[in-house]
């Protein structure tokens, strides 16, 4: 194993080592040690990832090629299935790795302060490190099987962390919901892998993508759609998105890391990674684009009427991931990855700033009980403002460039309807984000009960400031990122350049953004009466949107109720006559056989001998009878 391969492996294993160390040595360590281990492993992993990325960058810009693929040998060879373990460190994986380790480190740092008074402090860091490990495995793997391991692993970590406050019923229910939805997706991926293996004979990316052209479009479409099921569940896209708002029951750093910056973008990564499949399966790709754009618009409308600060951010996450999904579905893979990058900056920033607000208000999350906090929490306000303008798409902040790249792609690739969805969603995004900003930090005096207080904590403030800077300047990473990703998306049919801006489109979108901001300003700052009358006039539709289009209710009636009805019927009939009868019969049979086996085992030596003798006679009889049978067919040997 050369130096580079070892380095890459260490990046992957460091967070795991941290998790294991905290888990097993945790009880014997001081609390601070857990934090140091968790943060230390991530910081080192990030720095090493940076080294890898820079080395790759230098080598590439000086015209050399460096290895991207590292094989570590065969994990299992169960003929004909061969599972090797290897890592694929290409620019696409590196983009994700940098965010996972970098933003992950900042959020770990933030957690040191945010979780300071939690009694399960060490557990929290162990889970967080476990998450980082599984997420890294997901993006670094060089084949679908290890991707699936990571995919399941992040689901597990997410489940553990959403239910972190396990004494709250709502948290446990939310965790369960997330797990169930994610497992639906896992099954989709599994089926996709089975299909891939059946049609392409391997699970390694290199083999699969090389052979894609030899497989018919129908098979590829099926594979693409099953993969999409996994992506939709993991990335909270329509129609499997309902777990994400509930997942906000988890601690805020968890929301920032898992449910904003990294895990929920795994679906985007998956589809970008499988670009050869989608390029050859236009139908599946089109479905991805439709799902993405629809989710973007759908979530944006819901975001306009929510009152829980984290739920608004959750819906905005879903909406933004909708943009990315659309981009990768339309074929503009680089634009999708670019939006992932900037989104990780500003959405993590927003969550962490919101976390400061929530903590300073003693856990209050309802924006109706906030207001006028701008002066009381200046740092939270300013950083939240930066995040807001970034996500809204105000130049020159990060979101402007990436969102523009996606909308440009929609137009360039002739998706008029979906493009319109995205543009409307952009307007709504500006509106609801500024609504959130105004309601939280302005709109008159503070409306809450307890007095707001500002506890500045260095470990929380530093990451927020760093992310604020990144959210400000992140848009200028377009050129290097585009150049790097060109190495991954070799031969992609529709990939778009992200560095050039289509100025008329950008200007139009910007106008809409301004309009959105203005509307929010009008309704929430200047004319609250207008808002009241608007609410009265649109009470019906508002109710619909506030309840997230009653999708949870629909699922309740469509899935839960029939399921329970079937279960009840089963309990009535099957349970009595079949389910209970089968084990009874089985146990009776087993007991009878067991009784026989035990009776046989009489302890009487001579009976044992007799059994042997009978066995011998039967054995000989078998041979004689089969020999005669063979002889009567004239194939007697000899």
């Amino acid at each position, binding site marked *: 194993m050369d130096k580079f391969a070892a380095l890459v492996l260490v990046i992957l294993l460091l967070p795991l080592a941290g998790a294991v160390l905290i888990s097993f040595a945790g009880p014997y360590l001081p609390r601070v040690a857990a934090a140091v281990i968790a943060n230390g492993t991530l910081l080192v992993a990030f720095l090493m990832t940076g080294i890898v990325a820079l080395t790759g960058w230098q080598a590439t810009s000086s015209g050399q090629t460096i290895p991207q693929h590292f094989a570590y040998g065969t994990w299992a060879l169960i003929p004909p299935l061969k599972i090797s373990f290897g890592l694929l460190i290409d620019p696409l994986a590196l983009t994700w790795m940098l965010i996972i380790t970098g933003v992950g480190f900042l959020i770990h740092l933030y957690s040191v302060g945010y979780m300071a008074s939690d009694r399960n402090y060490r557990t929290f860091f162990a889970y967080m490190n476990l998450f980082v490990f599984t997420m890294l495995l997901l993006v670094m793997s060089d084949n679908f099987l290890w991707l699936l391991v990571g995919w399941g692993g992040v689901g597990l970590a997410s489940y553990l962390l959403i239910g972190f406050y396990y004494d709250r019923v709502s948290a446990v229910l939310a965790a369960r919901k997330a797990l169930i939805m994610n497992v639906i997706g896992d099954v989709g991926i599994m089926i996709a892998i089975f299909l891939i293996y059946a049609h392409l004979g391997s699970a390694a990316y290199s083999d699969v993508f090389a052979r894609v052209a030899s497989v018919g479009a129908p098979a590829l479409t099926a594979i693409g759609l099953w993969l999409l099921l996994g992506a939709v569940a993991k990335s909270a896209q329509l129609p499997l998105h309902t777990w994400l708002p509930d997942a906000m029951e988890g601690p805020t750093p968890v929301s920032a890391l898992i449910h904003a910056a990294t895990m929920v973008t795994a679906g985007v990564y998956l589809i970008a990674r499988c670009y050869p499949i989608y390029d050859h399966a236009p139908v599946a790709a089109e479905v991805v684009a439709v799902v993405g754009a629809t989710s973007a618009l759908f979530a944006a409308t819901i975001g306009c009427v929510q009152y829980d600060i984290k739920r608004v951010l959750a819906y905005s996450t879903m909406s933004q991931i909708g943009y990315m999904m659309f981009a990768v579905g339309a074929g503009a893979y680089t634009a999708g990855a670019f939006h992932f990058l900037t989104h990780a900056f500003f959405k993590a920033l927003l969550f962490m700033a919101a976390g400061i607000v929530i903590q300073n208000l003693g856990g209050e999350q309802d924006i109706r009980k906030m207001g006028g906090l701008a002066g009381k929490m200046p740092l939270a306000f300013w950083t939240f403002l930066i995040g807001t303008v970034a996500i809204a798409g105000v130049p020159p902040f990060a979101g402007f460039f990436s969102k523009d790249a996606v909308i440009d792609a929609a137009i360039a690739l002739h998706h008029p309807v979906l493009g319109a969805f995205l543009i409307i969603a952009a307007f709504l995004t500006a509106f609801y984000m500024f609504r959130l900003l105004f309601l939280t930090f302005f709109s008159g005096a503070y409306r809450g009960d307890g007095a707001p207080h500002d506890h500045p904590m260095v470990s929380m403030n530093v990451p927020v400031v760093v992310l604020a800077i990144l959210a400000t300047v992140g848009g200028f990473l377009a050129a290097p990122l585009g150049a790097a990703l060109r190495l991954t998306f070799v031969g992609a049919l529709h990939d778009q350049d992200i560095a050039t801006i289509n100025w008329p489109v950008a200007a139009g979108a910007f106008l809409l953004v301004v309009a959105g901001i203005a509307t929010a300003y009008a309704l929430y700052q200047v004319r609250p009466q207008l808002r009241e009358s608007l609410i009265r006039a649109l009470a019906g539709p508002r109710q619909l949107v506030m309840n997230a289009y009653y999708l949870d209710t629909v699922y309740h009636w469509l899935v839960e109720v029939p399921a329970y009805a079937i279960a009840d019927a089963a309990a009535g009939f099957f349970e009595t006559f079949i389910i209970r009868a089968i084990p009874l019969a089985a146990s009776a049979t087993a007991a009878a056989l067991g009784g026989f086996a*035990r009776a046989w*085992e*009489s*302890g*009487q*030596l*001579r009976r044992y*001998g*007799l059994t042997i*003798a009978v066995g011998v006679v039967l054995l000989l009889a078998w041979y004689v009878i089969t020999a005669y049978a063979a002889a009567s067919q004239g194939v007697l040997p000899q």
Partner: protein
Amino acid sequence: MPQVPLADYLILATVLFVIGLVGFLVRRNPITMLMAIELMWNAGNLVFAAFARNFGDMTGQVFVFIVITVAAAEAAISLAIVVMVFRHREDVDVDDISVMRG
């Protein structure tokens, strides 16, 4: 001297073998059972010897020699175990040896 046909040896050996087996099954004294087992082993020896003579090959006889040696060791060990087991018992009946069952 007329040669005894191979088949006769085999029949004799088989008869000895089955007598040994039946003896093992019907006797309850472990010593007698051991004797029955010796009979079975020696039936095998007889077959070896008969074939060795038939083939004019020494290996069969060597095998017999080795079996006899092993049989001696086996007999000694069996006797020792039987003695150990029945040291503190009134009678010698294997049917009474069944603490463990089931």
